[in-house]
């Protein structure tokens, strides 16, 4: 029996590995997801029949849990709008972290009985430390993801915790100290594990709350890695190779994705975590009174209708206004007049890695029309009209020429190389990151105020009346 169980787990692991590999290639991605899912189903089914030394099996509880969880998971994932994807991924991730917390909590609870009775064989230091760490990482992933979810869904504001950097360092040191103490001097009281859990949950909150704006994709990816690590640590407790390998794969791939995001912003991970730029409101030189040039839809429609190349630069504003399909419609209309429309996608545009790609794919924009950062900058000087749809920090020229700006050094889409720039924006409020953008005051730039979707709808009807 045990041989069959191990064989089935091995097959599950292979399916997970193949699934992940297929997921990183566009032509096989869908198959990859299905493979990984079937590996997961096989692993769960196998777990139901692993021979155990003790216990009452309690299949009724397990079946109910799986049924309720599946129904919730399927309903939520089918109902959610594509624009709400980042917060949903974050929410799911938090639940995985919470699952790791519940099981390590029960394990720790069980240890207390052993610690209180020296005649029982004692829990090893390694096992105790691993369980504590699984609870810590899981708890941080849980509250951190919930805060990220709340921020992305607009339920939690971007307010700052005073001295958050120092608070976080103190929290982290306290937690490490607490865990070290409990492992070295275990006793039967359950107070310290409870305090550790409470602090860890609170630390997840103070860790994520100060981070905002363009850093959000990095945080989501990092929290995803945390959940993987929590699963792997739990795998060590249960001596389950399946959990260990699955968790580590997620942990290491999530870390790599995080590093890719950081590289795209030319910042270190440490800098993202410690110095979230939401705090440094203002920033940059004082430019005194400056005026913006306002455009109207008719002017912009004429410019675009008689242009050869139009570059669309989407950002989070496009997601908020749900303007991706309208954008594609404008593209189709312009296409009739032989205007060539391209899309410039910054790696951290939006609130999730690759966020804009998903939205434009939903609107059926063909993949070859999407240009990544380097390719877009290479052809930027050919663009007659560059239309910024709700992007801000990723097109901020202060990143190139203003060393006092908090985003100085971050690679941006250099849209001022194009002949005309139209910025669609709701108002003159600075972007999510709270940094003033000199682009708006540049002589090449005209502002088109209003909701992105209705602005583009106006453009479409204006272009059509031009005939």
């Amino acid at each position: 029996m045990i041989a069959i169980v191990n064989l089935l787990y091995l097959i599950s692991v292979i399916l997970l590995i193949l699934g992940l590999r297929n997921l990183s290639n566009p032509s096989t991605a869908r198959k990859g997801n299905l493979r990984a899912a079937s590996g997961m189903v096989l692993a769960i089914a196998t777990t139901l029949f692993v021979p155990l030394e003790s216990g009452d099996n309690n299949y009724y509880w397990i079946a109910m849990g799986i049924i309720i969880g599946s129904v919730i998971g399927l309903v939520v994932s089918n109902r959610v709008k594509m624009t709400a994807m980042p917060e949903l991924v974050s929410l799911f991730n938090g639940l995985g972290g919470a699952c790791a917390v519940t099981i390590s909590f029960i394990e720790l609870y069980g240890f207390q009985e052993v610690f209180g009775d020296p005649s029982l064989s004692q829990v090893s230091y390694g096992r105790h430390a691993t369980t504590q760490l699984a609870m810590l990482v899981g708890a941080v992933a849980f509250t951190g993801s919930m805060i990220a979810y709340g921020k992305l869904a607009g339920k939690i504001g971007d307010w700052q915790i005073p001295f958050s950097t120092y608070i976080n360092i103190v929290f982290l040191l306290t937690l490490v100290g607490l865990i070290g103490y409990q492992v070295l001097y275990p006793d039967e009281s359950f107070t310290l594990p409870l305090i550790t859990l409470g602090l860890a949950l609170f630390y997840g909150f103070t860790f994520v709350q100060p981070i905002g704006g363009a850093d959000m994709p990095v945080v989501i990816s990092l929290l995803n890695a945390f959940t993987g690590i929590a699963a792997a640590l739990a795998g060590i407790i249960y001596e389950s190779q399946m959990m260990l390998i699955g968790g580590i794969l997620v942990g290491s791939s999530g870390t790599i994705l995080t590093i890719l995001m950081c590289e795209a912003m030319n910042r270190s991970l440490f800098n993202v975590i410690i110095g979230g730029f939401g705090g440094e409101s203002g920033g940059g030189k004082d430019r005194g009174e400056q005026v913006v040039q306002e455009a109207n839809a008719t002017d912009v429609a004429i410019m675009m209708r008689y242009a050869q190349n139009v570059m669309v630069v989407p950002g989070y504003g496009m997601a908020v206004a749900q303007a991706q399909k309208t954008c594609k419609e404008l593209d189709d209309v312009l296409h009739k007049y032989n205007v060539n429309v391209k899309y410039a996608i910054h790696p951290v545009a939006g609130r999730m890695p690759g966020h804009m790609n998903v939205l434009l794919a939903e609107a059926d924009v063909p993949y070859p029309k999407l240009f990544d950062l380097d390719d877009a900058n290479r052809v930027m000087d050919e663009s007659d009209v560059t239309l910024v749809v709700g992007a801000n920090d990723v097109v901020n020229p202060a990143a190139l020429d203003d060393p006092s700006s908090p985003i100085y050094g971050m690679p941006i889409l250099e849209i001022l190389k194009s002949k005309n720039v139209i910025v669609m924006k709701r108002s003159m409020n600075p972007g999510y990151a709270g940094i003033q953008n000199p682009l708006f005051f540049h002589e090449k730039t005209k502002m088109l105020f209003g909701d992105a979707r209705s602005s583009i709808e106006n453009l479409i009807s204006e272009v059509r009346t031009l005939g």
Partner: protein
Amino acid sequence: MNEIIQFIEQYPITIYMFVLAIFLGYELISNVPTVLHTPLMSGANAISGVVIIGAILLVRQSASDDYLTLGLGFLGIILGTVNVVGGHAVTNRMLEMFKRK
């Protein structure tokens, strides 16, 4: 120090696998195009729900009248299942949009 040696002696295979899986994860992902960042992250997120196996083992090992363990384990199974099922379903939805081209 003794304890660390003891830990290594206790779980040699586990430590090997831990290290090898880190490299494997790195190799699997290192060449992913930007267009797949979101589905990949979402798919990996679903895989991290593998922690549900621990919750199932916990409930199976529990006595049928240990309601603290059963209750928390039951909660863990629900949370883990939402993560796994919801995660894969939402990844599939995203990837279906890419497929239509």
